[in-house]
């Protein structure tokens, strides 16, 4: 009963806050609502026995990505757009895409079958701690993807500097 209560609170909050994000006219307000949204998504992760994900959600998304969003909003200088009614012409398209996606999700959840259980059970996670389990998997089994991640991050650093620094020099 309590589980359902918490789950429905978080699920309803995620939907409501997402609506707040896309309906605000001031993009800075959208970003602030999104901060609240990210906290609630972290709550959902906690309930799914994914503490590490919840922590990363808060550290990376609520901490760093939102700062990036905020700077993008400030960079775009959306003075004129704020006064205007948003997305007036694209309402039918938006509704059509939303209905199509919802139908697709409904079909998918109906045909969903839970796979076999893996080695890492909840008891094992409790024993080794969440970062411990993630660390073990990451530094033994998934070593190559982990090292590839550093290359992806390297590309992001160099790409950002090439894109933004060139404009300063000119």
């Amino acid at each position: 009963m309590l589980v359902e209560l918490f789950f429905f609170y978080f699920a309803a909050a995620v939907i409501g806050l997402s609506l707040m994000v896309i309906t605000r006219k001031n993009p800075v307000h959208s970003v602030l609502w999104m901060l609240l949204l990210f906290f609630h998504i972290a709550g959902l992760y906690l309930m799914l026995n994914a503490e590490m994900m919840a922590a990363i959600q808060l550290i990376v998304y609520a901490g760093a990505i939102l700062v990036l969003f905020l700077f993008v909003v400030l960079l775009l200088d959306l003075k004129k757009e704020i006064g205007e009614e948003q997305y007036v012409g694209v309402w039918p398209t938006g509704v059509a895409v939303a209905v199509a996606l919802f139908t697709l999700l409904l079909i998918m959840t109906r045909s969903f079958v839970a796979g076999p259980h893996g080695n890492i059970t909840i008891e094992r996670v409790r024993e080794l701690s969440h970062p411990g389990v993630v660390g073990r998997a990451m530094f033994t089994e998934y070593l190559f993807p982990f090292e590839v991640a550093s290359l992806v991050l390297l590309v992001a650093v160099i790409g950002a500097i090439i894109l933004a620094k060139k404009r300063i020099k000119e």
Partner: protein
Amino acid sequence: MPGTYIPADYLPVLIMFIVASCFGLVMLTVGTIFRLRRPYPEKLLPYESGMAPVGEPRQRFDVKFYIIAMLFVVFDVEAVFLYPWAVVYGKLGLYAVVEMFLFIAILLVGYVYAWKRGAFEWE
């Protein structure tokens, strides 16, 4: 829902969130109830005897803020990878240390590049 459970260890965090929200709400409500309310136009001026602001407050920000934010995201993600490593490297030994130093070395290339291009300089 299968797999869903109550993370009972996080009860203090929930209590802290509730107390913090209530604190803010109570403070604002108490302030609204008890404070004097005598509005007059001079109260809306930015400074007493100051200059009225010229132009729009919203201005296009410099792109250098974006570089700083982007670098912050990248090195924040790198730091996130360090947390699970810090938990397990004692058990995995030298192997894990070498792996992490390789990871950091690759990102150090990006760091040196950013430094040489002057991304950290505030012109």
